[in-house]
């Protein structure tokens, strides 16, 4: 079939395919979904886990828009202790590679989470630096390069688990943030988290203030990957609006080493198969041996050693 061509290495992590299920759009991967071929998934990223259980936001939580949706789920999760005891063992049975997404409202909460996760066998920790609720001032860590540097540095000192920084596109200059994360020792970057947006439900006379995802944000995700690739050496996981197979190719060409599938699965149940097929076809057509060869091919900074 040629799927072996799609093996990748993200730092020291070897993945059978470059498909990573994005945080919050695949739950904990435990639902019984017969149409998904789990062998084609390189890694799962869990819904973001916090130290304390979070109830999440009240309704309305979702609303549809042109080729996309707004969500305001609010990190509903049962907390890290429940997660480790009751959920993680089940994920292990089903997935080869596990990325656990975590978020803290304070630096201390992040450190506590890291200390707990240090005892678990997982493949990577994704730091969700794009939540708008850090400290009293409700900051978003990845909107400040200083804060990004500080938090990543602190966490890096506490753990040897590979770290991924998940960044928000809602910044003036994404390059600065990526550089700060790299300088602080991050192993990988995943972009993008959702784009801030708002919908108005005229029937219910309510607003849904949240994060935009889906096909409509693909150009924003591509632009972020393109810009970040130019300034860092670490691998980039490209996420945002991958709703058909060829969308994934575009992400590789501008600089991604792997891709994340999020709400694309909601609109296209065949998305995983399509991505695999498109990538294999593209490698064959361009006579490329592996995905590394096409990463950044259309980026002016291609050919760097990563």
């Amino acid at each position: 079939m040629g799927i072996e061509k799609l093996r990748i290495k993200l730092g020291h992590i070897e993945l059978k395919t470059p498909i990573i299920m994005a945080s919050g759009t695949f739950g904990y991967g435990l639902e019984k979904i017969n149409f998904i071929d789990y062998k084609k998934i390189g890694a799962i990223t869990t819904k973001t886990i916090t130290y304390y259980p979070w109830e999440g936001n009240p309704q309305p939580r979702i609303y549809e828009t042109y080729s996309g949706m707004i969500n305001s789920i609010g990190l509903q999760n049962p907390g890290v202790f429940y997660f480790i005891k009751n959920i993680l063992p089940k994920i292990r049975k089903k997935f080869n590679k596990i990325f656990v997404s975590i978020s803290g409202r304070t630096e201390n909460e992040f450190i506590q989470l890291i200390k707990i996760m240090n005892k678990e066998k997982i493949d990577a920790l994704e730091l969700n630096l794009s939540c708008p609720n850090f400290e009293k001032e409700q900051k978003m860590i990845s909107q400040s390069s200083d804060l990004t540097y500080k938090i990543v540095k602190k966490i890096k000192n506490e753990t040897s688990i590979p770290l991924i920084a998940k960044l928000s596109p809602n910044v003036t200059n994404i390059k600065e943030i990526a550089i700060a994360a790299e300088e602080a020792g991050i192993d990988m970057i995943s972009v993008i988290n959702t784009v801030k947006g708002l919908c108005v439900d005229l029937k219910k006379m309510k607003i849904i203030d949240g994060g935009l995802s889906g096909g409509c944000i693909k150009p924003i995700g591509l632009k972020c990957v393109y810009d970040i690739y130019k300034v860092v050496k670490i691998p980039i996981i490209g996420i945002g609006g991958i709703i058909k197979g060829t969308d994934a190719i575009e992400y590789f060409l501008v600089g991604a080493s792997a891709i994340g599938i999020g709400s694309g699965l909601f609109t296209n149940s065949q998305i995983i198969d399509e991505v695999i097929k498109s990538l294999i076809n593209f490698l064959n057509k361009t006579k490329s041996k592996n995905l590394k060869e096409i990463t950044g091919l259309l980026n002016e900074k291609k050919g760097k050693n990563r």
Partner: protein
Amino acid sequence: MNSEICKILKNKNLSDDFYLLKIENNFKEVFLPGNFIHIKIEGVFLRRPFSVAIYTKKFIGIIYKKIGLGTEILSKKRKGESLNILGPCGNSFPIFENKKVALISGGTGIAPLIFLSSELKKRKNKIYFFYGARNKKLIFSEILPSGIDYIFSTDDGSFGQKGNIFDIFKTYKDDYEIIYAAGPEQLLKKVSLYSSKKPVYISLENYMACGMGLCYGCVVKIKEEGDGKYKRVCKDGPIFEGEKIIWE
């Protein structure tokens, strides 16, 4: 749950904005009353959920109301065209045997209750089916299972009794052992708050995205220790015990 491409066998206007859609049943999974299908409609991003109304080995039928862009596009689909369908989605109504049961339906709530009533009948339940609609045209007698006692009501009195179906229901002697309801949220709320002495099962219709239990978009708050807990309508539901719902 699976994803199948199913051919449209029929997509017929019942009256006004109501349609009956029949598709090939290409699923190996078994559907139960209360389950819904999640339909991909080209032209809108998210799938659209609809309760299964008719279920046989050969086909699946839904009854839908045209209310927006998705259902508008769906209503133009013709026999022979195909749809990508997820199913069976969600949980199902608990079904017992030899009970006296009441079914209360308003508007499109008729859909899941038709499937439910045919299963209840097989299990020798005594069924009282309260079926409310705006007017006579929206009482779809031709698709109702036979051998069941129906009590009809219409808002304008053009068929059955005049008035709201819940008000009509309350005028009957209430010695039912179980109540099932589907339809507008206001109706479900009233039925749920009406009796705590007997189980009331309702089918919720929250806005949803994935339909597979992945995204936590469609949650409803359920009474549990503490302040309650958000449960997923698409996975833990859409069928819930009425008295457990914390209405927002």
